[in-house]
């Protein structure tokens, strides 16, 4: 059994079924033909079908080779990835209140520090990159980046 295929195939089938269920209230065209629901239902139905095919193939297949790397590096890696996700969510929530340069600076510093850049270097690089990005996008390309209490 290939567990990854059973899991991912099952997940695809479930997602397809959920999407199909969401199309049930979609209206028909005036002449009774399917309208907005036709295409999503077709796609969602195929997703259920092929999700099940993948899960079935996975259940019958030979087990895949074990992934390399120990549990410790795996856990550190997952934490790194979670920090990346948290950093972007934090950016979205904070940037309009704190301003672009401070928010991006903190995000860059947190990630660099977590990934093992020395403290001094992380501070310097994060500040430099945040200011550099601001100058490039806001001043050269004229993107109206979010502003905070300070004008950048």
């Amino acid at each position, binding site marked *: 059994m290939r567990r990854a295929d059973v*899991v991912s195939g099952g997940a695809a089938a479930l997602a397809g079924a959920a999407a199909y269920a969401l199309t049930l209230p979609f209206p028909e065209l005036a002449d009774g033909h399917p*309208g907005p629901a036709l295409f999503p239902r077709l796609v969602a139905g195929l997703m259920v079908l*092929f999700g099940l095919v*993948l899960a079935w*193939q996975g259940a019958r297949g030979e087990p895949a080779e074990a992934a390399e790397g120990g549990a410790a590096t795996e856990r550190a890696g997952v934490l790194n990835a979670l920090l990346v*996700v948290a*950093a972007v969510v934090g*950016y979205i929530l904070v940037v309009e209140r704190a301003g672009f340069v401070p928010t991006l600076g903190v995000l860059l510093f947190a990630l660099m520090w977590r990934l093992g850049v020395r403290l001094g270097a992380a501070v310097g690089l994060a500040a430099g990159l945040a200011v550099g990005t601001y100058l490039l*996008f806001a001043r050269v*390309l004229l993107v109206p980046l979010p502003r905070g209490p300070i004008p950048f």
Partner: protein
Amino acid sequence: MIDHLGAALLALAQPDVLLVILLSAVFGLFLGAIPGLTATMGAALLVPFAFFMEPLPALASIVTMSAMAIFAGDIPAALVRMPGTPSSAAYTEDSYRLAQKGQLGLVLGVDVASSVIGGLMGAVVLIVAAPRLAEFALNFASFEYFWLAVLGLSCAVLISPGSAVKGLIALLVGLLLSTVGIDVAQGYPRFTFGVIDLLSGISFIPAMIGLFGVSEVLRNVMAPGRMPPAARVPSRIFEGVWPVVARYRWNVLRSGAIGTFIGVLPGAGADIAAWLAYAVAKKRSKEGAEFGKGHIEPIVDAGTANNSSLAGDWVPALVFGIPGDSITAVVIGVLYMKGLRPGPMIFEQQPALVYSVYATFILANLLLIPLGYLAIRASGHILRVPRNVLMPAILAFCIVGAYAINNSLFDVGIMLATGVLGYVMERYGFPVAPVVLGLVLGPIVEQNFMTSAIKTHWDLTAFFGRPIGNALAAVTIGLWLLPLLSTLRARRRARRAPDGPVPSR
């Protein structure tokens, strides 16, 4: 045509356009030379810059960046046995083993030469084929566009390497995402959950940046490996290259043709071109058994094919608005952003722009000789750029890029969600490129189907009532039947030789 090309070359010779081309070249060489960063990611990261440029430098920057990045992917393959982009994966083993035998200079020299020749061959086909195909495409109605888009979707699944079922599921994910927002037939809001930002659908560019940028950042921080030390690059890299190219001239021609053809097929790009050219070379060569052990022939073949596919990819993108690969999917997004509608009319309405794309392909491939040389000389330094600084910096560019298109933080959220989706999919062995093709082609399929169906009062036989449409339908349905036929053939063969090895996919 020569006059037009001359005028286009003159337009490119403006100092600001040349500067854009040069900077994009450096950007492409840098991205390509760093394993884990791809040409598609480069195209997605260029979009916020393209947004603020005139159409000509915007398209020129993507053409130049992609040509450089696909070549530069060969450098770390030879130096540290890691392909810089997926397009160099087919011949990484040969490149590295030859380099270990003291032929690093020759390998890199052949990489440059095959990339330049392949790139120029692709450009010639683009220049000759695209306008003729566009004239032909003027006769297309919604029926033909429907079949063409379905053909594109089918190619994306059937030609992609790995499990066809996973490719298909990835494509369905993209198609499902493309249905979010107001529908074409009735203006009914689908899957919006009351969120106003979703009414206009999932913004394509932030989704691209997420799928190809953020997912790579996540992958890199999950497994922060150290780069193995790179070998020293000899100073003379073009020595002995010409005899190799001359010896394998037929290979160059064949692989250039294969690469361009794969490029022209909707949805299949440089990586598939390289694998296919490699496979054909292995079958045809007397020394095929030596491939993978350090042979120069597959490097010539696949190195030519991947660069030649790049220009081929622009053929369906310009002529039909159907992406040839994921880079040209970004290009189509950029064209719409500039108010230009890709399709046969663009050749009549914007001839100067189309010719400048041609001219950029020629210029970029010629620039590859000096710039490729410089990149090879600098490769030791590029490979030493620390990942733990680079990844946060790329994430910052992704955030700003996703925001800049609509000045919307919601788009940054889309970027993050698609980034996580792309990461999870790759981790479970699903290719990401079909998601993008689904996103781009989904609306084309649905819109043309609905238009045709409503126009003919749901008489579905009309889809088989026009000669060109019928031909496209026949090819598409034939493609669908291929896997079925090959399974049946394999079964019959297995039944005939019950003790023989079971053929595997």
